[in-house]
């Protein structure tokens, strides 16, 4: 660990701590490094990160971690209790629950990723534009946001899926449509606090276009709070997806979606408790992981604590 024993590591550390960085990349890397140092000091946040990283690794290496894709029924071996061969037992069709959980992490990540990709840009775009432009643009955009905020999330998602037909993509779309509005509000609130700042005025005085100011000045400052909120919301998104799956409106069988696994497993809760419990624990663990990670990120990314 000592600097002398590991000259390359020491060189990297010196590069990351140099008071006068030699390039934009070094400056950014230093900033990220300082954030990481602060994040690392928070054990709870690190636990969250560990869970999320485990989820990602499970999704990537699913073929290596499992013996089957968990899709083919094997009726003679149905509802077996946990054993050396089937670590978490088998379900009502004889499929290995451990295999299904691992492959299910791909479904979960797919939902989480897709929702983030849709929600964050829409929320950011609407919120920053409303906040920066002000006037009637603000009024119109924020009333639209209010309309979306007024609907209960699961019910609106249900209505959407009912109209578009059940399926994973439609479930994702439904969740995204009901989730973006709070992001617009956060982004707008953030913009309102900075739009009168001298550095924005200075950019205007240099002749920067509205688009440029939004992209280069406003969005980078809102990004942190949106990312934090998104991470904290992940738990809710996963639960909503699981809820839709549970109601049979999300992922369709035989896709190993955790919510759907609980839904079909609940009939066996009293006699074969492991069937619904394993996916339930997985949902709980991953939701918790994202929550803890979000809390840790907030401490690091919050622009107000990042100064000084």
């Amino acid at each position: 660990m000592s600097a002398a024993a590991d000259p390359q590591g020491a060189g990297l550390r010196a590069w990351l701590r140099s008071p006068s960085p030699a390039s934009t990349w070094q400056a950014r890397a230093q900033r990220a490094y300082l954030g990481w140092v602060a994040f690392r000091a928070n054990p709870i946040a690190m636990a969250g990160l560990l869970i999320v990283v485990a989820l990602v690794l499970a999704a990537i290496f699913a073929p290596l971690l499992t013996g089957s894709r968990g899709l083919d029924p094997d009726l003679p071996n149905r509802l077996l209790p946990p054993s050396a061969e089937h670590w978490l037992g088998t379900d009502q069709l004889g499929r290995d629950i451990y295999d299904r959980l691992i492959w299910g992490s791909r479904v979960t990540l797919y939902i989480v990723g897709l929702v983030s990709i849709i929600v964050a840009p829409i929320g950011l775009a609407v919120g920053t534009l409303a906040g920066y432009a002000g006037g009637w643009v603000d009024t119109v955009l924020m009333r639209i946001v209010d309309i979306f905020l007024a609907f209960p999330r699961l019910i609106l998602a249900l209505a959407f899926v009912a109209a578009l037909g059940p399926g994973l993509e439609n479930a994702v779309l439904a969740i995204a449509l009901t989730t973006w509005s709070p992001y617009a509000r956060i982004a707008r609130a953030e913009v309102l606090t900075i739009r009168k700042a001298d550095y924005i005025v200075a950019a205007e005085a240099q002749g920067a276009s509205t688009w440029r100011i939004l992209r280069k000045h406003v969005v980078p400052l809102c990004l942190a709070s949106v990312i934090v909120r998104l991470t904290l919301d992940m738990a809710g998104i996963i639960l909503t997806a699981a809820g839709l799956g549970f109601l049979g409106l999300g992922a369709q069988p035989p896709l190993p979606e955790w919510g759907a696994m609980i839904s079909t497993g609940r009939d066996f809760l009293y006699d074969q408790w492991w069937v619904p419990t394993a996916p339930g624990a997985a949902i709980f663990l991953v939701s918790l992981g994202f929550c803890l990670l979000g809390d840790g990120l907030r401490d690091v990314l919050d622009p107000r604590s990042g100064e000084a």
Partner: protein
Amino acid sequence: MIEVENLTVEFGRGAATVRAVRGVSFTVAQGESYGLVGESGSGKSTVLRAIARINPEFGGTIRVNGTPLTSKRSRDEARRMQMVFQDPYGALHPRHTVDAILREPLEIHRVGDKDRRIKAALSDVGLGPEFRFRYPHQISGGQRQRIAVARALILEPEILLLDEPTSALDVSVQAEVLNLLKRLQRERGLTYLMVSHNLAVVAHICERVAVMNRGRVVEELTASTLRGGEPAEAYTRQLVSATEGYDREAVRGYVTYE
């Protein structure tokens, strides 16, 4: 260079209207430094902000280089006129490196040879190349204000609007920034319009000074009149007296001018 004629600025509407600037006129010649002094609420900053069109609504006419300004700022104006703000902590984007801050105007106006210009701008304001990739929170207040000056000058404008450029700085740093502003003006023949509440700072930089109170120009005088000779107006005399320090007897005689 700058001609301001009968400038008025009002905020709010109806009964709540505040007349921040009421009929202010002055002219600034090319290469001259002109100062606006006054206490808070005198409208001095509002005049500057109207010229920079940060407050786009104004009455009267403002001509720069003979061209009347419209309420919408054109992009070319930025190459002729730039502004330096009071608060060095608020004027630089917290997430941009010095390099990005200085590069922005060059990108907006599609000026080539960016790296050379950025290095030259840094050395012009007396900062070494080691500052180029630092973030604003990694440098001191005086250095930030130098960066703000460098950003304002990187497009090589003819006019610099200075809004209390040193009032947030320690006196020793203030001296450095004032010297920098003087040197740059001499080297480049810049025209300065400076706003400050500090009579000594304005008299140091500017040849002519307009004293403002309640949105009007009380009197216009040269720096040497301000220093030596008696200013004509009682308001100015009171301001000078207060600037010179505490005088128990003089304070008893202070009046509020409406």
